């Protein structure tokens, strides 16, 4: 019973650290790995819980509420004195102060969670996670499939996704724009949803000396897949290619001639 009581007190004290971590890592991501247990990153949990409690205790001190460490510390290490007198006294007093305890733990947990979300938002808004390695979130598929708005063009690029999938005795190349995706609890890609999807047999790839046949609908190798969304399972994909597609108003941007598909070098008045 003594150990169980200490464990409950410890869990309550660490709760703000766990919620801060959850708020920071989950934040406002479109998709993110499921929350992991408190023991996954105990150092982070301990440090943030200590910070939140230090802050809360400092604020309470301003209102004359002083923490009695001669009670708290023995409780944490399970030393309740002769005949468990400390525990008995505490349980006798509990009905009178239970509201204060509940308010303290609820408030610190809530504040820690909000702090985590605010820090998450701050780091992403400034792009610190993309520039500083230790601030990068453990959500690799977010960085691949949910691109950052591009400052130069003022738009967020679309993600054009290609994957090779084995079906029966053939390998097929599937291509389409990413509409959504789902992660497993470890942060791996479970499935991806494509729109405007096409597929063709991989064996019908161009030969080395064959010129590119870019017109997908004129290219007999491809055919459009009827439906709103095509769902591909990661477990069935062999290789993946990702391209970021920008769409910008033509009247606001210039293109170097050699990269403009509409440019005709034979045209005297381009």
């Amino acid at each position, binding site marked *: 019973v003594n150990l169980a009581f200490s464990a409950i007190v410890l869990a309550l004290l660490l709760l703000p650290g766990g919620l801060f971590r959850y708020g920071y890592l989950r934040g406002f991501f479109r998709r993110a790995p499921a929350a992991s247990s408190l023991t996954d990153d105990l150092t982070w949990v301990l440090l943030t819980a200590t910070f939140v409690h230090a802050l809360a205790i400092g604020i309470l001190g301003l209102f004359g509420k002083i923490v009695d460490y001669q009670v708290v510390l023995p409780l944490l290490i399970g030393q309740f004195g002769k005949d468990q007198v400390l525990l008995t006294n505490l349980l006798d007093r509990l009905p009178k102060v239970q509201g204060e305890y509940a308010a303290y733990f609820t408030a610190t947990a809530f504040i820690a969670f909000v702090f985590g979300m605010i820090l998450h938002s701050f780091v992403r808004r400034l792009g610190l996670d993309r520039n500083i390695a230790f601030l990068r979130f453990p959500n690799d598929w977010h960085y691949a499939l949910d691109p950052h708005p591009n400052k130069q063009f003022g738009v967020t690029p*679309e993600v054009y996704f290609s994957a090779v999938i084995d079906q029966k005795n053939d390998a097929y190349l599937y291509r389409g724009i990413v509409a959504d995706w789902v992660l497993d609890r470890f942060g791996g890609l479970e499935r991806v949803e494509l729109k*405007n999807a096409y597929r063709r047999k991989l064996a019908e790839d161009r030969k080395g000396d064959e010129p590119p046949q870019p017109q997908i609908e004129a290219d007999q190798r491809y055919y459009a897949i009827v439906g709103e969304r095509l769902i591909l399972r990661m477990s069935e994909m062999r290789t993946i290619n990702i391209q970021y*597609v920008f769409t910008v108003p033509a009247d606001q941007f210039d293109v170097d001639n050699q990269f403009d598909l509409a440019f005709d070098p034979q045209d005297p008045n381009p």
Partner: protein
Amino acid sequence: MSLIDKTLEGILGKSSEARKVQEALVSGRVARVTAPDQKQYLVFTGEAAAHVKKKTS
């Protein structure tokens, strides 16, 4: 769905323009396409992004 998302979907929904988009994806160059709202857009991948510049005047 974002405006740019809708625009690209509209472009791809029109077969003649979809071909241009596909060509841009394959060749790493820039396609000029007309969206259903009759506005002209440039469509390109990150590979060609360095060759698209904001108009100065």
